[in-house]
Every structure is written in structure tokens, then in C-alpha cells.
């Protein structure tokens, strides 16, 4: 590109793989990833809770790692592999983390659940364990449950961690 004209555009083409499908949208440059997902792609599992990088309800996986999609421009995710809670199950078969959340009653109102589940997927991929209760609580500090249902969430994660070492 030439540097004769100041660079920068007010709209940006974003190409990304979302839940295994190639997607391509042109959006205003200031568009946050969560709004691209919810409003352009119709994927509403990632929710906007606090909108200030605190609650983690907007958590998605960016190239396999948890990020807060309210604090990332859609443009920054260009070229990335994005996974939302909609893309976790394999057809009718729930993802093991989703199964464990059901098994251990790790959700109440469900608002934080998609983000919480993805944060756990990221944690289990990153940390081979064994995990202590403290490890789990610390690793999930970026996800707030407004029902305060942490106890069963931690229980579900510890069960997953135990199962993967047993199996």
C-alpha cells in the first residue's frame, strides 16, 4: 500500500471461520466481535452482560482460547477460527462440558452459561491438570454467575478433570 494517503477505512471486511463455517461480512470498523456474532450472524449464545470486560457472558473461543467478545473488534478476529456455544455440540451429542454442566446442575438462569462453558473448554485445553478447587475458581474469575451458582459449576469442572485422568 502507499503511504501517500492516511491509511484506514471506516468499514472492514471480516473473513473468519465461525463454528466451522466460513463467514464473510463487511462491517463498520468500530463493530465489536460480539455484535458481529449476534446481529450479523444470528448467533446469540454469547450475551452482552456488563459490557465492560468483567462478566464473561460474551466469552467465545478465538483460535481455541477464551476471549471476551465485547472487548475485541470484529476486525481483529479477521482470519481467526471462532467458536461459540452454538458450535460445541456434535449434532445431537452435547460437548462433554455441556454434559457435565447438565449432570451437575451447573446452571440456573442460563445467562452466564454459554460463556462459562467456553471458559471451561479453554481451561481444560490449556491446563492438563490435575485441578484443585482453587485452580478452577481462579481460572473462572473472569466469568460471573448472577445466580451465584458457582458451587455446582466448580463441581462439574472437577468431575471433568477427574474423568479425563481416569479415562
Amino acid at each position, binding site marked *: 500500500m502507499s503511504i501517500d494517503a*492516511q*491509511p*484506514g477505512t471506516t468499514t472492514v471486511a471480516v473473513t473468519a471461520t465461525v463454528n466451522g463455517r466460513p463467514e464473510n461480512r463487511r462491517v463498520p470498523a468500530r*463493530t465489536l466481535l460480539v455484535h458481529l456474532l449476534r446481529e450479523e450472524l444470528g448467533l446469540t449464545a454469547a450475551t452482552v452482560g456488563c459490557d465492560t470486560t468483567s462478566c464473561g457472558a460474551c466469552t467465545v473461543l478465538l483460535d481455541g482460547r*477464551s476471549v471476551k467478545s465485547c472487548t475485541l473488534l470484529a476486525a481483529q478476529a479477521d482470519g481467526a477460527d471462532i467458536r461459540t456455544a452454538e458450535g460445541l455440540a456434535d449434532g445431537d451429542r452435547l460437548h462433554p462440558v455441556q454434559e457435565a454442566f447438565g449432570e451437575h446442575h451447573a446452571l440456573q438462569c442460563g445467562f452466564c452459561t454459554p460463556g462459562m462453558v467456553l471458559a471451561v473448554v*479453554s481451561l481444560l485445553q490449556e491446563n492438563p491438570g490435575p485441578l484443585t478447587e482453587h485452580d478452577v475458581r481462579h481460572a473462572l474469575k473472569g466469568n460471573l454467575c448472577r445466580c451465584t451458582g458457582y458451587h455446582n459449576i466448580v463441581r462439574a469442572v472437577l468431575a471433568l478433570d477427574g474423568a479425563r485422568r481416569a479415562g
Partner: protein
Amino acid sequence: MIPASLHYHRARDLTEALELRQAYGDQLRPLAGGQSLLPALKLRRDRVDTLLDLGRVTELSYVAHRDDHLAVGALTRYHLLLGDPLVDRYAPLLAAAAAAVGDPQVRHLGTVGGALAQADPAADLPLALVALDAVVVLRSATGARQVPAAELAVAPGVTVCRPDELVTEVRVPLPGPARWRYLTFARPALEWSVVAVAVADSRVALAGMGPTIRRAYGVEAALAEGAGVTVAAARADEGCDPPDDVRASAAYRRHLSRVLVARALTDSGTTVEEPR
């Protein structure tokens, strides 16, 4: 909340980013991980004309052991410092500071250079770098210079980095400290430290105790004179100008600094006889 309208350009590599900085300076705001900048833009506490996204400048993401220092690329994300064998071996204080940053999601995006450029007086990585007596490399299209980490920030959000420069690397001198400790006191819901302390051998640095991160020279002088931990820690807030703000009062910060410095010195194994 979304940022005000802005222009966006993704730099292809470091060369292009530096050429653009040279040509357009402060009209282009570098965007690294965005974990401080994007919240500020959303809250309209900050405004930019054009974002210069450095996300593709992957050549600045590395940890390297060189002759007399450990080099960390400015665009190394925090999570990459956790469990890195070179960081574990040569600068575990850096890993301890990285572990204290925000939460896993923030650590997956935030970068070392971004934290330095943001110049928050309560930031974790910059505090560790000041205690480690690290050097920050500032590069422009025409050359590079080195600035001590302690002299990079001059006020909250303000650094000596010129409009044509980018923070490209930090260098931690080796051998690293034999004794070290990182301690932060934060309200969990707010994440940011009220006060934090990093100890690296005889160097003690404080965050949250003034407009910039600073060395606790009073403590260091007392230790050099052979004072005990209690006597030295009592001088933690000497020369500090802590803010009175929503996170804590100035008086409480002074108290915290003395308590945290005493704990950090003790935990780091600073073996100085108590006078009493």
C-alpha cells in the same frame, strides 16, 4: 457501548507499522491486544482517529535468551509468559506478574508492550519490569533507543514513546534476582491492584502509589544500611504521592504499601536481622 466512529488499518508487518508511524504519528493509535484501549474507547474516555492494528505483527511475539538478558517481544500476550520455560528459568517474577493480570480471557489477548504503552500506574507487568531493572526498546523507522522501564511512563497514560516510535521489546538483565516476590492487593471485582509490590533482590517497586510505577528508594536505602524488614518497610511510602480515588484513599494506600512491602520482603527471604 461501542467506540465512536473510527478508521481502522491492519499493519502487515513491523516495517509497515513503523513507516506509518513516521508518516502519520499520533493520528494513528497502535492497537495491540486492546484490553485497556477498547474499554476506554467504549466508555468514550479515549478517542482515536485511526487504529493501527498490530495484531498481524507476529514477529514481535517471542521470548528469547540472549547473552546478558532475556528478551520479550512487545506483542507477546500475557498467557504466553505463563509456563514458558525461559521465563520460568530466568524471570519467574514476570510470570508471577502475568498471572495477576485480569483473568484468562484478558491474558489471552493483552500484551506486554500494550501494558507498557498504556502506562497505567497500577499495571502488573510494568511493575515487575521496573523491579527487574528492565530496559524497554523503542523503535522508529530510522532507529532504536533503550529506555529504563522505570523511566518509560511520565504520567498516567503518558510515556516518553514518540509519535513515530513503537515499543518493540523489553530486556530483562541476567542473571535475574535470586530473591523475588510479587504481591498485589486488589478488590476481586475490580481486578486492578489498589497497591502492588515487586521485590527483586535489593530492588523494591510499587504500583498504585503515585502517577507512575516507582521504586521504593526509602526501603532500598534502609535495607542497604542493614535495617530489618519492619524498619525498611515503614519507609515504603516515602516520596510517594498516592491518589485518593474510587479504589482507595491515599492514607489506606500508604498503609497497604507498608504492609505489602513487609510481607514481600519476608516472603522473598530477605534475611536481615530485626533490630528488636
